[in-house]
Structure formats: structure tokens, C-alpha cells
């Protein structure tokens, strides 16, 4: 079985650092474009994300998930941090207006990874309000307040739907051995 590129980075193979960038550059760039305000932000973020990925390579455990999900988790964390910081910084250039995206048909995501297929199937089982809240928050990078404004929904309801939706998706994906008592039922 071929070693994962992250395992090779963790062992200190210098060629694997660039191989990681070749393999996952498009994925990280696309996520960064979705979750930043400007192209310049995205360019800076991609470098931060890859540096973090290379440094964290030793923590990748293939038993817990794919490299794509591991890298996407790091990318989202970095981008969320940047979005939080950006709230306090005035934007000097015009922000990009990106078209909102929705959920793919679960059958279309087979080329991405098994977790994406499972996630698509799980999200399809949520209530429409939960699907919409997660769609705006996770896929489009909107804050809870922005979601509340967009959906004309109380902030507390957005938070509740986000919580119930994420926990239920996790349970439906089989990532939780025992779902918490009151989430899946609701």
C-alpha cells in the first residue's frame, strides 16, 4: 500500500511537501475562495493553510478519515480564524460577490471522497430549515448573525438549528457511536 503524502511529510521526505501542494492545491484554493472576502485574502490564506498542513502532517490518522477531510478541516479552521480577525479590519478593496452554492446530488460527489458522499446523504435527511442554516454557514461561510438576517430567523433559532443539524449529520454519518439523547429525535 502506498504511503499517504501526509505520512511522508511527517517522516521528513522533502519531496512530499511539494507533492502535497500538487495533490491538494486546487482543493485548498477552492475552499479559500469560498470562505474569504477577496482574492488577495485567499492567496494569503492558501499559504497559511499549507504551512499548517505540512506542520500538522504527523497528526493525520487514516483510520479517522481521509486526507481530503483532514486538510479541509485545517483549511476551514484557518479561514474561520481569518474571517473573525477580518471583522475588525476595514476592507481596502471591493469584496468579491460570489454566487451562493447549495448541496450537490450525493451521487455527484463520488470523485471527492467517501465522507462527502456520506455527508451529502446525511444532510438530505435533515429538516429543510436545518439544511438551509448549514448550507449558508458551512458552504457559504456566513456567520450565525448573517444567516439570521438572510433567513429572517431569530439568532437563537439559527444557533439551535446549526447545533442539531451538525450533531445529527455526525450521527447519520456513523461518526458517533451513540448520538446524544435529544438531537436526532428532533
Amino acid at each position: 500500500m502506498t504511503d499517504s503524502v501526509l505520512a511522508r511529510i511527517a517522516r521528513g521526505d522533502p519531496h512530499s511537501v511539494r507533492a502535497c501542494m500538487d495533490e491538494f492545491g486546487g482543493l485548498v484554493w477552492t475552499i479559500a475562495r469560498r470562505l474569504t472576502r477577496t482574492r488577495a485574502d485567499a492567496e494569503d490564506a492558501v499559504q497559511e493553510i499549507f504551512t499548517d498542513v505540512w506542520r500538522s502532517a504527523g497528526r493525520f490518522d487514516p483510520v479517522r478519515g481521509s486526507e481530503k477531510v483532514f486538510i479541509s478541516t485545517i483549511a476551514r479552521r484557518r479561514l474561520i480564524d481569518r474571517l473573525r480577525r477580518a471583522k475588525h479590519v476595514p476592507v481596502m478593496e471591493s469584496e468579491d460577490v460570489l454566487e451562493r452554492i447549495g448541496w450537490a446530488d450525493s451521487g455527484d460527489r463520488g470523485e471527492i471522497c467517501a465522507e462527502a458522499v456520506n455527508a451529502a446523504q446525511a444532510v438530505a435527511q435533515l429538516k429543510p430549515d436545518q439544511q438551509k442554516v448549514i448550507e449558508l454557514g458551512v458552504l457559504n461561510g456566513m456567520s450565525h448573525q448573517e444567516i439570521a438576517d438572510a433567513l429572517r430567523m431569530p439568532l437563537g433559532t439559527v444557533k439551535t438549528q446549526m447545533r442539531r443539524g451538525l450533531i445529527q449529520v455526525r450521527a447519520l454519518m456513523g461518526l458517533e457511536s451513540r448520538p446524544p439523547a435529544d438531537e436526532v429525535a428532533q
Partner: protein
Amino acid sequence: MSGHFLDNERLADLLVQRASEGLSEADWHELDGLLIAYPEADPQALEVTAAALLLAGEWKEEPLPESVRRRLNAAAAEFSAGIPKVSQLSAAVARREAKPAASTSAGFAWFAAAASIVLAIATWIPRLDYQYSGKVDLLSQASQDSETLVVERQKLLASSSPWQKEWSPAEDPSGTAVKGDVVWDPVSQTGYMRFTGLQANDPGTLQYQLWIFDETRDDHYPVDGGVFDIPSGDSEVVVPILAKLPVRTPKLFAVTIERSGGVVVSSRERIVVVAAVSGG
């Protein structure tokens, strides 16, 4: 604590917040405190779920622009250039700690872990937050005489849950003759460092500082384990560990030399000794 960690409403709220729009420092502090009651909890569980959901979105992957690729190539070259140095240090640690009877695969896994851990040390950026309070460390160390600390360490060792790991020298020459160990009890969150051969320091100029790398935290932000001194004339010194944040799954303890009073941002120039928890 019985029950599923996501049944704790406030804990679930904070983990959802972390996974969806991030946490403030105060929220992080509260989350750390709540997680202590759930040692089996996976604090990244919902972040990973959100990442899988992101991949389920209706978007097409765009190629990395050439201008970004050029920047990344430069960053990759710089990062790769640091790897041999890290590997040499890892190898030195591995030579000292690897057990002859260990299987090849176990030794290899340990080496890989050590490489990534030491890489983390070489690049960490301790967080600028509430965990720093160097003066308290010194008062705590001074308030207990050396005999009491030896006795307290023995008591901790005799209890049911602690583990013990030996120091290995790191890059700084001052660590080459150091022997001793770390004893840490994850339940009581207490521990002691024991040193022989560690040079006495002049507290007015330089002091030692402990950093604890936690599996559940970002490697850039190790927990400050306290500032301490080594007096002259003592053959063996026992120092209490004073972690400023809860330590859930420690993977590496590292001692650095810093300016008097300790630091919040380490220069990373003088790493004296390390004790790896994983695979040791």
C-alpha cells in the same frame, strides 16, 4: 462524568460555535474547562463533520493559480529546508530513547511521531493569552523545599494514574548531560520534573521554562508549564509543573532557556531537553 459530551448543552454550543464561526479567547477558556469532565470527548468532532459537509457542496474545484503556486513553491522550499535539521534532532532523540527490543515498525512509528513533534517545537508560537504568569511559578517553586518536592513526587508516582518519561537532550549544548524524567498525573493535572546535570542558572539573566504540547491543541500553542530555576550545588533538582491550561493528551514536554521572567513568545533558539509521551 457520565453521559455523552454532546449532551452537555453548553459544551455542545461551544463545539458548534468552534466548528461554524470560531471562538473568542474567553470561549476557548470555557471550552477547555468543560472538556476536562469528558476525557473521551473528541473536541474536533464537529469541525471534521463540517469539513465533510463542505466537500458535499455543489462546487467545482478550481486549479491553483500560477501566481499562488509560485508563492507556495517558495514556501515549500523553505519548509523542506528545515526538515533535515528536524530529522537530525529526532534521530538523536530516537537513538537515546528507542528500546533495542522494539519492533522495526514500532520504532519507525515512534520516529515518525518524534519527527512531527520536534517539527512542531521548531515552529511553535505560544499564544498570547491568559496562560502566562511567570512570577507565580517562582513563588510556587520557592514555597516548597527540595525535600518536600522529592516526597511529593514519590507520592504522585505511587498513586494509580501517573506516567513517567525520561528527558532526552535537544539542540542546546546545555542539555547534553541532563538526565531525569517527567512524572505527570492526567487526573489531578499535577506533575514534577526531575533533573540531574542541568546547569544552574542566574535568575536575573536567564530562566528555564517548560512547554507542554497537547494532542488536542494546535501545536503552535503549547501550554506554558511554568518558569523555574536550577540552584547551584544541588546534584538533583525536583521542580513542580504548573500548567496554565488543562492538559488533556500530552504528547511532548520541552524545556527552553528564556530571558529572566519567562516569555509568552519563545525565540525557539534554546531547546534544552524534551520528553516525548507517544511511543516512548
